[in-house]
């Protein structure tokens, strides 16, 4: 069972890991459609921007963008995939990577199980290959519902494998970031996933393969300070909060209250840190054009 899969292993770097005779049926990839988890229990939700009360059903049908003010609500990794990829074009990768608890960190196992319950997935990132308007591409999506997309060993490893495969296949890479940062519970191993993913992107760049990083609400900490910031092109979703240190920590440590609008996508663009802000509804089209223009012809 899932609980057993989060088996304790102390101080051993297992790579390639020994084969474990455990079922992965619980964690089989879902079809690329809006997941059931997307639907909260209540029937309606209030837009934090314009205050409009929206029916959850309408919100889902509008790709979780407020029908009145275009506020962009968070959306699951598979929800994004469904909006972006050509139908039936997605091939998921590395579902067989299972998170361990190498530091025997207090409460980590519980958190993992909770995250699994909440997200229906086993980790904070979904990777694979797909086509966008017929253009083949390697994709990765952080899953906000899994420990806020935080980066531990498995997230780092899945992203690196995806990049390495993109190099093998000579494909461009698009990563959608949604993350609170490094995953504290894996300590230094988590921190070094920043270096590991950045190093892989360096190799991709050396091959002159395009990398588009899409920053979505929220992207912070170790993810901002690694793969999310290293795109040839950086796209953000409207009103996404993006930064290195979260506003609460800045308040706590520096006693500094951030001005209104700080760390929004728009703030980041003003400060030169984002190439363009793209509405969710236009994302597929914009990505397709950018990918096409990097194939060396139109």
């Amino acid at each position: 069972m899932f609980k057993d899969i989060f088996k304790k292993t102390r101080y051993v770097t297992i790579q390639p890991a020994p084969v474990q005779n455990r079922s992965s049926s619980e964690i089989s990839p879902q079809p690329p459609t809006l997941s059931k988890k997307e639907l909260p229990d209540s029937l309606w939700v209030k837009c934090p921007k314009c205050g409009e009360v929206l029916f959850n059903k309408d919100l889902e049908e509008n790709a979780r963008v407020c029908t009145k003010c275009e506020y962009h609500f968070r959306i699951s990794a598979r929800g994004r995939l469904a909006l972006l990829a050509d139908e039936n074009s997605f091939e998921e990768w590395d579902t067989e990577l299972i998170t361990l608890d190498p530091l025997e960190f207090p409460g980590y196992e519980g958190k993992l199980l909770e995250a699994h319950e909440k997200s229906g997935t086993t980790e904070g990132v979904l990777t694979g290959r797909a086509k966008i308007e017929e253009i083949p591409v390697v994709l990765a999506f952080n899953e906000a519902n899994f420990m806020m997309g935080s980066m531990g060993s498995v997230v780092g490893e899945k992203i690196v494998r995806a990049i390495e495969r993109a190099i093998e296949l000579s494909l461009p890479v698009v990563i959608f970031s949604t993350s609170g940062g490094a995953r504290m519970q894996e300590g230094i191993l988590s921190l070094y996933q920043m270096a590991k993913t950045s190093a892989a992107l360096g190799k991709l760049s050396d091959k002159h393969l395009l990398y588009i990083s899409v920053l979505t609400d929220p992207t912070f900490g170790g993810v901002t300070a690694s793969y999310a910031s290293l795109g040839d092109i950086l796209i953000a979703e409207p009103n996404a909060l993006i930064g290195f240190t979260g506003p609460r920590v800045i308040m706590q440590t520096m006693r500094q209250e951030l001005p209104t609008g700080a760390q929004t996508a728009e703030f980041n663009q003003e400060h030169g840190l984002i190439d363009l802000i793209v509405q969710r509804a236009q994302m597929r089209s914009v990505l397709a054009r950018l990918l096409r223009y990097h194939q060396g012809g139109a």
Partner: protein
Amino acid sequence: MLQLFDFEKPIAELEQKITELQKFSADKEIDLSQEVAILEKKVASLKKEIYGNLEPWQKVQIARHSERPNFYDYVPLLFEDFIELKGDRLFADDRSIAGGIALFHGIPVTVVAQVKGKGTKENIKRNFGMPHPEGYRKALRLMDQAEKFGRPILTFIDTPGAACDLAAEERGQGEAIARCLLAMAGYHVPVISTVIGEGGSGGALALGVGNVVLMLENSFYSVIAPESCASILWKDTTKAKEAAAALKFTAQDLLRLGVADEIVREPLGGAHKNLRQTAEEVALAISKYLVRLRLETPDVLRTNRYQKLRAIGVYQEISEKSSEILEKP
């Protein structure tokens, strides 16, 4: 007087006793040399016992000691020459990162380090060793030059973390750190990173992508400050001690986890007890690895660094085949 921690008090008290005894012996002209000798032996064994079995939180305290040697303290002891080079050529010179060209055992090297201040005034100037994006961009500029001219890079890590204020956000703290990570991973020159004090999170890692990572015995290197971790876990920053243990961030832990390559011995009680001796140990360790790394070709240096990073991480892999078998009813 030096800052004294609770766990050091038994030693200090015994040492005080010895001083008193010696004074008494001198004043009264009574021979107490045997008694003193016994006590001194006891102090020595007490030191070994206490300093040899420091808990993670105690190491944190030593690593953050106000008299802990900083980068500038090591410079004259490690290098025959050091020419400091400043600025990111873009915005400012960040004094929480220092860098330049140095001569190490006759070899020109590029040196980059985080620098905490000594005392409040210097700490304000150096932002308590917490670099802004311009600091990382200075580091990147200097390291890029080392790559251009084929010079080895030595980095020294000593920071509570990257600056976390509005200015840092405005100027792209994340981007600045990420660029350092990407660049360091790609260099064709030897890179040796030494954690000399605090290794605080991404702000430390930005200088940490070495072929070799050395850690001073009482340094630590963590994904998050123990106080912040305690705050998140138990909503209680005073439980930093427990968090320090949970995070497994001591030199010994990192050696086991495949991040650190070697632990550099400190004098009993910490580097501040004997700077010269510490510097000698640091020089010895750097020298050992630098000699080895300089024998490698540029491509091997780069590949080995990548392989080192590539291997960091702990997880399990279930083969599809075996799971298929098990899925049968």
